[in-house]
């Protein structure tokens, strides 16, 4: 019963938190923190209960409607657990980085509300419930961006909501056709049934996931949403919501329809490459610090799709590693970019300059995360990019080495932005700004830095999970 409770309890918990802490706003964050820590330990406990053969750990069936073959089937495998752990960890860190957010009762109750459906997305194997949770994550996000965001927040929030909602509809029709042609809503059952029009269903679902990832040309919602969202929410958008797209791609195309995916893997590869290179170019062009980070985020998600397109065990493991790596690397970049804006009241890197002298701690972590983004050995970025390039070359031949250009481009935009914003002569704006950082924010950044280096030096724990998750490809 724990499983279904942690999905639906947040609805009541968030209402309770809002009404209890309206008078004492500072209490909300402690309740949220406690709840997310509980979620983390539950996910951790499930990790240890996973069956060793790589199958699913059943967590129960609920709300059954036999005439429609419709029920909330909860079961998790190593891939889901990896996502659950990542989500819970990011939620905990988000509480620290939002420590001084305004209007805390509403903010943290929306965060708690968000935690339910996002867990549901990664826990259910029923496609209709997957879609329900997928859509539900949008509602708290709409309010979090629209109320706490920056100047253009309303435009960004509504664009984000409508854009992702529209593309989800393609996926929805794909799920309908799956049910019509197989008679099941549950992917573990669909897998064994014959599908009459796999190509059509594959493309419908792929468009839905591609918009979330986001892949070129469906990426235009992301720079607006990520830039205008408060930094902590950008962390959730980049760290968790984009991962829903990658997770969906692996679970519903690779695992569900491997033959069709191989048929269209070239399309995935080309779109992934285009995304990586195109977003990288745009990042070089940006003066706007958070937009630069947002394009860098898109560029890295393109690499994930390239890795998935290989359709090999190595490639998928690399994709999972890069998904986690991307979340941990991009998050501090977003946080610090947002923090720079908060302190200097400018978005533009050429108006910053010399921040290193006034805020050495944040600048150091920005540089570390930037180095990880460009793939410096010893960080998560290196392992991710290396494994992706190796697996892509193995699958597609030597020409794919052009993907190494992506590393070059990211070196370009990272180093140039470090030079413009962090080093160089101190600009008058930086001169008169006050750069004090609260302890919880420092703590959260330190954890990010630690994880980036730790998993960069010791990637084995993540590959262990990948080993278990993709054992159906017949392990390394």
């Amino acid at each position, binding site marked *: 019963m724990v499983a279904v409770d942690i999905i639906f309890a947040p609805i009541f918990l968030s209402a309770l938190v809002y009404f209890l802490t309206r008078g004492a706003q500072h209490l909300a964050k402690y309740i949220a923190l406690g709840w997310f820590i509980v979620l983390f330990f539950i996910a951790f406990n499930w990790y240890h209960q996973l069956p060793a053969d790589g199958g699913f750990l059943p967590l129960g069936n609920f*709300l059954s409607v036999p*005439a*429609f073959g419709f029920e909330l089937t909860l079961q998790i495998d190593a891939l889901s657990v990896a996502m659950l752990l990542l989500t819970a960890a990011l939620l905990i860190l988000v509480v620290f980085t939002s420590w001084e957010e305004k209007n805390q009762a509403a903010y943290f109750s929306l965060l708690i509300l968000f935690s339910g459906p996002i867990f549901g997305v990664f826990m259910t194997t029923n496609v209709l419930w997957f879609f*329900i949770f997928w859509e539900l994550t949008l509602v708290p996000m709409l309010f979090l961006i629209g109320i706490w965001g920056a100047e253009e927040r*309303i435009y960004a929030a509504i664009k984000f909501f*409508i854009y992702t909602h529209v593309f989800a509809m393609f996926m929805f029709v794909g799920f309908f056709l799956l049910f019509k042609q197989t008679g099941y809503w549950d992917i573990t059952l669909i897998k064994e049934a014959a599908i009459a029009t796999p190509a059509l269903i594959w493309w419908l679902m792929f468009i839905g996931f591609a918009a979330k990832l986001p892949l070129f040309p469906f990426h235009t919602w992301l720079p607006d949403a990520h830039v205008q969202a408060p930094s902590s929410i950008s962390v959730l958008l980049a760290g968790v919501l984009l991962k829903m797209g990658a997770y969906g791609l692996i679970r519903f195309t690779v695992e569900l329809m491997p033959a069709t995916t191989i048929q269209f893997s070239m399309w995935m590869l080309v779109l992934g490459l285009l995304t990586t290179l195109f977003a990288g170019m745009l990042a070089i062009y940006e003066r706007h610090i958070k937009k630069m980070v947002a394009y860098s985020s898109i560029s890295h998600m393109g690499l994930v799709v390239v890795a998935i397109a290989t359709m090999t065990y190595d490639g998928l493991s690399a994709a999972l590693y890069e998904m986690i790596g991307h979340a941990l690397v991009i998050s501090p970049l977003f946080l610090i970019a947002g923090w720079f804006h908060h302190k200097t009241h400018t978005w533009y890197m050429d108006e910053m300059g010399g921040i290193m002298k006034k805020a050495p701690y944040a600048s150091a972590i920005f540089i570390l995360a930037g180095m990880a983004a460009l793939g410096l050995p010893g960080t998560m970025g290196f392992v991710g990019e290396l494994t992706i390039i190796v697996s892509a070359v193995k699958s597609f031949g030597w020409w794919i080495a052009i993907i190494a250009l992506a590393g070059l481009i990211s070196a370009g935009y990272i180093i140039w932005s470090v030079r413009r914003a962090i080093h160089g002569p101190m600009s008058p704006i930086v001169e008169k700004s006050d750069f004090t950082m609260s302890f919880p924010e420092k703590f959260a950044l330190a954890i990010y830095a630690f994880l980036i280096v730790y998993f960069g030096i010791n990637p084995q724990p993540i590959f262990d999970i990948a080993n278990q998750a993709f054992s159906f490809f017949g392990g390394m």
Partner: protein
Amino acid sequence: MSFIILIAAGLLVPLFYRNNIFIAKMIAVVAFLLAAYFIYTGNSLHSIFPYFTTDAATKLMEFVLLATLAAVSLALTGFERPLISQMLFLSGASIAFLETNNFFMYIVLFEVIAIISYILVANIRNFFNAEGAIKAFIAGAVASGIILLGFALFSFTTDSFNYAEMNVSGKFTLIAVAIMLAGIFYKLTVVPMHGWAADAYAQVNHAAAAILSGVIKSVVLVATFKAFYKFLIAYPVATVLIFSFFAIVTMTLANFMALWQKRISKILAFSSIAHSGYALIPFAAAASAYSYAGVLYYAVAYIFMQTSVFLILNDLRRELGVKYLQDIKGLYKVAPLHSLFFTVQLFSLAGIPLLAGFLSKAVAFYAGVDAGLWVIVLIALLNSALAVGYYVWIIKHIYFDDTNSNETITMTPGSLIGQLILLAGTVYFGIVAGNIINATVVY
């Protein structure tokens, strides 16, 4: 028994409401409860009169109808009091309309409901109301004439009007059905017969609009599906063509029109028209085993959502004089409870999950996919995503914009209980799909 109680209460209420609206409300609520009880025990019309039958699905729709009308009658105040007795008559007629198994009775009761609706909209306070009421009346009268023409043509070709025994393969049947549908489409506000509705829903008193656009439309939807089911099955090609075409035209045009509006009641009116378009998809998919489930689910979800939003708008209009989108800027500070109910119901109308609006669309559209109309369903889904634009736009004005006003208003207890009933319906049917599907799908 249920029918007699409702009509008797309808006659009794006018004696009280001039002096004490509370007693009138209580009589109405007790009548609705008693009617529900008698329907539950199987003591409805079919036990007394011929031409009526009932089943689990019909009963469920009747319970939903009675709950909604009870919620509306609790929320009414002041000059809307005549609506109470009109709603009691309406509920009696609707129960008969839902339970009938005779095409002649269907036509007669359709007229009865139409006449009650003319009286409903005649609650006129200004020129604006009068314009809406006259449009509703004239369009309704035209529709009645068209339906009677089609029915006359149909009656030449059949010996029996019983739904199961009707002769649907006569020479003129297809043309007769098409003419009747043209009339019924007026009531269902299908484009191009929607022009009256856009004005009438927006211009008549909002409580009457709640009943007109929410309750009556849902009832007509379900009863029409039951009445026309045999025709739909007998002419599969014409069914798919007619209903798919009108579904797409209706939803697309209404959604685009809604995007342009500044007046909130007009947005809700066009949203109501767009929803008629979605609701036609299970008609087009009559061949699917899920078609009846789709229609019934749509009607059940729609009755709660649409009634609720118009009732909230009625409260806001009365307390704050809200008419245009700019009037609800920062409403969450002024009227937090109204804002909350409004937002949830708008999300439901937009089709956000865990609310009835989502599951109703899921079931209705699945029926479409099941019948092979996945392209139509994809267009409908994209339309419903487009519709999110204007629903979220209203929510944007409520929560994201600021107001200078310092006054706050609270809900009256009656209104609060009414909204809670409607919200319970929206949430319950958004999570629990079993009742409706088990009642309609034979497996």
